[in-house]
C-alpha cells in the first residue's frame, strides 16, 4: 500500500530545498547532507512504489496507481484535481530518476569543493562560495522532476515542468557570479555562463509557451486535463466535435504538435537544440542532472505521457507522429555529426545527448513505444555516468579541452574504467545498457520500415537509415573522446601532473552507475523482454492498445549483428584515426586539418629518415639495418597512411567537416540569429517606440485624444457603410 504515499515522493526533496533555503543556508556540509537525505527518502519511497508496481505487472497499465485528492478548482461540471498517476513507465521513471539523482548528489559533495593554490604555495581546498545554494537548487530540481513524473494532471505536470525550467536557469548560470576568480573562473566564463543561462531559459520558454497553448486548447476541447479522464475514449473523441481550427488541420494534430513543441525545446531537438551545448557552462553535476535524470528526460516523458493523444491523432489521420519521427531522426544524425568536431569533453557529451534524445523520439514517432521508453531509462544511467566521469576528469585535470589531455588512464584508472563502461554503452556495444536499447530501436525501425506487413514506409526507412548512420558516428566520436582523453601520451604535462584519481565520494557513485549501466540492459533483451512485457503488454493508461510484441526471430538476430557491426565499425574507425597513432602534444586533431597538409608533414618526416639513411650509408651494417628497417617501417607507414588512414581520415574528416561546418553555420547564423535576432529586433523596436514617450504631456494627450477619436470615427464610418 505504498502507492498511497506516492504524493510524498517529491515532497522530500522539496522539503530539503525549503530547509536549506530557509534554515541551513550558511552551513555547507549540513545542507549537503539534508539534500542527500531528501533524495534518499524519496528514493526509498519510490522504490517501494516501484516494487509494488512491478508486482502488479502489466495489469498496472489498465489499472494504474491513481489518486487525485487535491481539488484545484472546479471547471464547469468537472473539477481539476491534483494527485498521482503511476503506470508502468511512470514506475520505471520512479526507479531511474531518484537513483541517478542520488548518485549525482553524492558526487556533488566532493565536486563542489575546489582546490587552488594559495599564496604560500599550499593547495587550498575550499567549498564553492555558494555550496549550500547549489544543493538547495538541485533538490528543487529533483523534487520538481519527481512531481512531474507522478503528475496525474497535465497542469500539475506543467507546473513541475516550469519550476524545472527556472532551476535550469539558475543552475546553468550558477557560476555567472563575479568574484569567483580564485576558483579558476574568469570574466569570460562568467559572461558565457550568464548568456548560457538566459539562452537556455528563453529557448525552453518558447517550448513552454507552445505547450501551454496546447494545454489550454486541450482543456477546452476535451474538458479535462486529468490523464486518465483525458485518455478515456470519450475524452479524446471530444476533440473531434468542434470545428477544425485551421483548414484541414485537426484539433488532435494541432494540439499534439503544440505539446510536442514543448518537448522540442525541453529535450533540445532541432531546431531548438541550441541551448543544450551552451548549458555546459554549468557545473558538471548540473549537466548530468539536466542531461540524464531530469530536464531533457522530462521532454521525452511528456511525449510518453501524451502518447495516447499521438496515437489517437495518427489513427484519425493526423501527422503528429510522423513529425515526431522526422524531427527525432533528423536530430539524431545532425547532433551526432556536430559532436564529431568538438574538443570540449562535455560538449561532445552534450551533442551526444541531443542525438540520443533524437533516437528516443524517432522511436516513439514510428510507434516503437517500448524501445524508445527503454532507451530513455538506459540512457539516463550511462549518460549520467559519462558526465560524472567527465566531470571527475575535468576536476582532476583542470581543463575541458580533450586535446590537452591524453594518457589519463594511468593516472585515474577507476575513472577511466567507469568512463569506458559508459562509453561502450553509448556506442552500443554488448553487453552494456545502450546496446540493448539501441538495438531494440534499430530492430523496430528495421521491422516497421522494411518488413512491415502493411508495406514499406519511407519515413520509417529514413529513420532507420538515419539512426543507423548516427549509431556509427556515435561510436566514432565516443571512440575519439575515449582515445583522446585516456590513451596516448599526455599532451600537456602540466595538466597531466595535476591529474589524480578521484576521491571516494566521487568514484563510488561512478562505480554504482557503472554497475547499473552494465546490468540494466538485461531488463529488456530480445530473448527475455521483461520490460516490454511490463510496459508494453497492456498498452497505456486509458488507451489499452497493446503494442506489437514480436518473439525473438531471425530479424532480431540480424539486427543484433547489424547494430554490433555498426558500433564496432565506428569504434574501429576511431581507433584508426586516434588510437592507432595517438594525437601528440600540440598536434591538431586529425579531423581538423586538411589531408594535404598532413601528407606533407608525413613526407617530411620520411625524407629526414631517408637523409639519415644516406649519411649513414657507409656506417655500420647494424645502423644501416636499423635505418633501413626504420626506413622500411616509415615506408610502410607512409603507405598505410596514404591508403588507409588518410583515406579514412579524409573521407570522414571531409564529411564531418563539411557537415559540421554547414550545420554549425546554420546553427550559429540561422537559428541563433533568429533567437538572438528576435531579441535585438524587439530591442530596436523598443528603442524606436520609446521615443513616442517624449516627456511632453501634451503630446500624450494629443495621442490619447486622437486615439479616442479614431475609435469614435471608426464606429461612425462603420454605421454609414
Amino acid at each position, binding site marked *: 500500500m505504498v502507492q498511497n504515499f506516492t504524493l510524498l515522493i517529491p515532497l522530500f526533496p522539496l522539503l530539503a530545498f525549503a530547509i536549506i533555503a530557509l534554515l541551513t543556508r550558511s552551513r555547507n556540509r549540513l545542507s549537503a547532507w539534508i539534500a542527500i537525505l531528501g533524495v534518499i527518502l524519496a528514493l526509498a519511497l519510490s522504490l517501494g512504489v516501484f516494487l509494488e508496481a512491478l508486482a502488479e505487472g502489466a495489469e498496472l497499465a489498465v489499472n494504474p496507481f491513481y489518486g487525485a485528492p487535491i481539488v484545484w478548482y472546479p471547471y464547469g461540471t468537472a473539477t481539476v484535481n491534483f494527485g498521482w498517476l503511476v503506470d508502468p513507465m511512470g514506475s520505471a521513471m520512479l526507479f531511474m530518476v531518484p537513483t541517478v539523482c542520488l548518485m549525482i548528489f553524492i558526487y556533488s559533495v566532493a565536486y563542489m569543493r575546489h582546490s587552488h593554490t594559495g599564496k604560500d604555495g599550499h593547495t587550498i581546498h575550499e567549498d564553492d562560495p555558494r555550496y549550500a545554494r547549489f544543493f538547495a537548487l538541485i533538490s528543487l530540481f529533483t523534487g520538481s522532476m519527481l512531481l512531474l513524473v507522478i503528475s496525474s494532471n497535465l497542469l500539475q505536470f506543467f507546473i513541475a515542468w516550469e519550476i524545472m525550467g527556472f532551476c535550469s536557469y539558475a543552475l546553468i548560470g550558477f557560476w555567472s557570479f563575479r568574484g569567483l576568480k580564485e576558483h579558476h573562473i574568469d570574466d569570460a566564463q562568467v559572461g558565457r555562463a550568464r548568456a548560457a543561462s538566459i539562452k537556455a531559459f528563453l529557448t525552453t520558454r518558447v517550448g513552454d509557451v507552445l505547450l501551454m497553448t496546447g494545454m489550454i486548447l486541450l482543456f477546452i476541447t476535451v474538458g479535462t486535463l486529468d490523464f486518465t479522464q483525458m485518455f478515456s475514449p470519450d475524452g479524446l473523441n471530444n476533440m473531434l466535435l468542434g470545428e477544425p481550427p485551421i483548414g484541414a488541420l485537426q484539433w488532435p494534430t494541432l494540439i499534439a504538435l503544440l505539446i510536442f513543441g514543448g518537448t522540442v525545446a525541453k529535450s533540445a531537438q532541432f531546431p531548438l537544440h541550441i541551448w543544450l551545448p551552451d548549458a555546459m557552462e554549468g557545473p558538471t553535476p548540473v549537466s548530468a542532472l539536466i542531461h540524464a535524470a531530469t530536464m531533457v528526460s522530462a521532454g521525452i516523458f511528456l511525449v510518453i505521457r501524451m502518447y495516447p493523444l499521438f496515437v489517437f491523432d495518427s489513427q484519425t489521420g493526423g501527422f503528429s507522429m510522423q513529425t515526431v519521427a522526422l524531427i527525432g531522426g533528423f536530430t539524431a544524425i545532425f547532433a551526432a555529426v556536430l559532436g564529431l568536431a568538438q574538443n570540449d569533453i562535455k560538449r561532445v557529451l552534450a551533442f551526444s545527448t541531443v542525438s540520443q534524445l533524437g533516437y528516443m523520439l524517432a522511436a516513439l514517432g514510428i510507434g516503437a513505444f517500448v524501445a524508445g521508453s527503454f532507451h530513455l531509462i538506459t540512457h539516463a544511467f550511462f549518460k549520467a555516468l559519462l558526465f560524472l566521469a567527465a566531470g571527475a576528469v575535468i576536476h582532476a585535470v583542470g581543463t575541458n579541452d580533450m586535446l590537452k589531455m591524453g594518457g589519463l588512464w594511468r593516472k585515474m584508472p577507476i575513472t577511466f574504467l567507469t568512463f569506458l563502461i559508459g562509453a561502450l554503452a553509448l556506442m552500443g556495444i554488448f553487453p552494456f545498457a545502450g546496446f540493448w536499447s539501441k538495438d531494440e530501436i534499430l530492430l523496430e525501425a528495421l521491422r516497421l520500415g522494411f518488413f512491415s506487413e502493411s508495406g514499406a514506409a519511407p519515413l520509417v526507412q529514413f529513420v532507420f537509415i538515419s539512426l543507423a548512420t548516427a549509431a556509427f558516428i556515435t561510436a566514432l566520436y565516443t571512440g575519439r573522446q575515449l582515445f583522446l582523453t585516456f590513451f596516448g601520451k599526455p599532451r600537456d604535462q602540466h595538466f597531466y601532473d595535476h591529474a589524480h584519481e578521484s576521491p571516494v565520494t566521487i568514484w563510488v557513485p561512478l562505480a554504482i552507475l557503472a554497475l547499473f549501466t552494465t546490468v540494466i540492459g538485461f531488463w529488456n533483451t530480445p530473448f527475455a523482454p521483461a520490460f516490454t512485457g511490463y510496459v508494453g503488454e497492456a498498452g497505456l493508461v486509458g488507451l489499452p492498445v497493446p503494442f506489437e510484441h514480436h518473439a525473438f526471430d531471425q530479424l532480431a538476430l540480424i539486427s543484433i549483428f547489424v547494430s554490433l557491426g555498426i558500433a564496432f565499425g565506428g569504434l574501429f574507425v576511431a581507433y584508426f584515426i586516434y588510437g592507432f597513432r595517438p594525437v601528440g602534444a600540440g598536434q591538431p586533431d586529425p579531423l581538423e586539418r586538411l589531408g594535404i597538409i598532413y601528407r606533407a608533414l608525413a613526407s617530411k618526416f620520411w625524407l629526414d629518415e631517408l637523409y639519415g639513411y644516406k649519411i649513414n650509408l657507409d656506417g655500420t651494417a647494424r645502423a644501416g639495418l636499423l635505418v633501413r628497417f626504420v626506413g622500411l617501417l616509415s615506408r610502410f607507414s607512409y603507405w598505410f597512411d596514404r591508403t588507409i588512414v588518410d583515406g579514412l581520415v579524409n573521407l570522414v574528416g571531409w564529411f564531418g567537416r563539411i557537415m559540421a561546418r554547414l550545420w554549425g553555420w546554420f546553427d550559429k547564423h540561422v537559428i541563433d540569429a533568429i533567437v538572438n535576432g528576435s531579441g535585438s529586433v524587439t530591442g530596436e523596436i523598443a528603442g524606436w517606440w520609446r521615443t513616442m514617450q517624449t516627456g511632453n504631456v501634451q503630446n500624450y494627450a*494629443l495621442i490619447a485624444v486622437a486615439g479616442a477619436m479614431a475609435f469614435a470615427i471608426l464606429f461612425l464610418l462603420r454605421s454609414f457603410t
Partner: protein
Amino acid sequence: MDLFGVISQLVFLLVAVLTLAAGLATVLLRNVFHAALALVGTFFGVAAIYLMLEAEFLAIVQILVYVGAIAVLILFAVMLTRGMMQTEDSNINSQWAWAATAIGVLFVGLFILILQVPWKISGQPVVGDTTPALGTALLTTYLLPFEVVSVLLLATLIGAFIIARE
C-alpha cells in the same frame, strides 16, 4: 415661424457667437492674463445659454463659482507665475497643427453625429420654479454624491495646501 421665434434665434446666435469668440480668444491670445479675462467672458456667455435653457439656478451658480472662484483662482495663478507672461515668444506649442487637424476631424465627426441622431425631444414646458425641486433632489435622491463631493472638496483643500504651501 413667428417673430418671437426669429428674435429667439437671433439672440441665441448672438450669444453663441460671442461665447465662441470669447472662447477662441481664450485659447489664442498670447497674453495669459488677457486670455483669462476672455475666459471670464466665455463663462458669462455660457451662463446666458443656461438662462435661455431655463436653468436659472445653474446660471447663477455658473457665475458664482466659475467667475467668482475659478476665474479668480486662475488670475491669481497667472500673477503668481508672472515671470512667464511676457517672455513667451509664442503661446502655441509645436504640435498645434496636428492638434488642430485632429480636432477639426473630431468636430466634423461630432457635427455629423449631432445631425444624424434622432434626439429624444419631449418638449415639456417648465411650469413653475425648478430651484426648490432641485434642492429637494440634491438632499434626497442625490444625497450620496452630495456628501461625497463635500469630502472631496475637503480633500482638495488639504491637498492644495500640502502641495502649494511654501
